[in-house]
């Protein structure tokens, strides 16, 4: 029995399939087997016992998160009943950490991909804006930027997008690094698309897709922080 056949039997019996490194042709067959089994009447109904057990598990995780939150007990009576506040508190953490991580990730990608010795000089790298005479300017109220949300801003001197991710805030320029066209947010994917030549950037500033023959630089990062309930970016007046 080949491994696709074995996989089919595992799906048909609703057992957990064994991993293997699939070729493209095998992948196409797995995909089709999944499409067929998913059409089996009632197969996709969740098991109520599973749903209840997961709810219990999440309740456990929630109360743990609550009890290990030292700042909570410091300024509020411990007896106050409260909803667990998953990551709700956002102190004034500047996005420098997140920005640094993003830049680091880019650098690692480059390193892994680098083969020639002069690669580093010719590859466009991601920069962070450090404008002279910049100051922190408010973009919007913190509560209006939920987890995963993206907000477009235009402060005259600089236009950009700011996003709240699981690890903090990040902001990038809204100007395509090719010829300076203004990027448009694709709301469903949180990608930034250029109307001029179809380049697409991720919110990290990295290039997702482009068909140009020239190298594109990633979008510059903009420093962002949260202060007194407001999301602020570091841009020129």
């Amino acid at each position, binding site marked *: 029995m080949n491994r696709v*056949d074995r996989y089919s039997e595992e799906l048909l019996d*609703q057992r957990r399939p064994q991993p293997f490194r699939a070729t493209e042709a095998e992948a196409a067959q797995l995909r089709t*087997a*999944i499409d*067929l*089994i998913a059409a089996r009447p009632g197969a996709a109904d969740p098991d109520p016992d599973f749903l209840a057990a997961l709810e219990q598990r999440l309740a456990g995780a*929630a109360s743990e998160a609550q009890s290990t939150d030292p700042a909570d007990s410091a300024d509020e009576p411990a007896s106050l009943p409260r909803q667990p506040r998953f990551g709700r508190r956002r102190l004034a953490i500047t996005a420098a950490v997140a920005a640094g991580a993003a830049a680091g990730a880019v650098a690692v990608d480059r390193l892994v991909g680098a083969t020639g010795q002069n690669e580093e000089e010719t590859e466009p790298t991601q920069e962070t804006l450090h404008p002279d005479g910049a100051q922190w300017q408010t973009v919007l109220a913190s509560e209006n930027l939920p987890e995963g949300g993206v907000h477009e801003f235009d402060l005259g001197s600089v236009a950009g997008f700011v996003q709240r991710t699981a690890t903090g805030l990040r902001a990038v320029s809204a100007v395509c690094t090719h010829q300076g066209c203004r990027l448009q947010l694709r709301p469903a994917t*949180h990608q930034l698309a250029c109307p001029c030549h179809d380049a697409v950037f991720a919110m990290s500033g990295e290039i997702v897709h482009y068909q140009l023959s020239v190298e594109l630089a990633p979008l510059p990062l903009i420093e962002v922080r949260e202060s007194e309930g407001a999301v602020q970016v570091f841009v020129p007046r």
Partner: protein
Amino acid sequence: MSNGVDTGWETVYRDNADWIYRLVFAKVGNKPDAEDLTAEVFLAAFGSMRTSAEPPQIRAYLAATARTVLAGHWRRTFGRQINEIDLIALAEPRADDIADTERTAKRADLIIAELPERYRRILQLRFLDAYSLKEAAAELGVTVGNAKVLQHRALRLAAQAAHRLQEGSA
């Protein structure tokens, strides 16, 4: 600090667990993986999600998390993406569960309709009607060995048919 509409994670879970599970199941096709990945989605999302967000934002966030979780699952198990969660399609005016089920069924129908009769029958019996190999062989009047070979070829042809249908609709 809160704007007072936070109904807590229990509500978020109860409102979203069913469709997230169905979404994941449609992509992996088996219960053990679907359960594990559903748990992974909620554990990951609840560590970072603002439960006071509006329901559409919560749905979008969970869908995006599920997409990431699924991609990780495929990388780990088969070293490549078998399929993916289409966030753009999900963001379109929301079809209810019935419509989703019907779409899945219709797609399976289209695929097997492309095949010669015997291949169509074996896939119908085994995948959709949950016949065992032995039962399917008896139904088709062939040996178990023959049924196995038939099923093997049928799936290969079905994958080609699915590819053609994909190309045609793209």
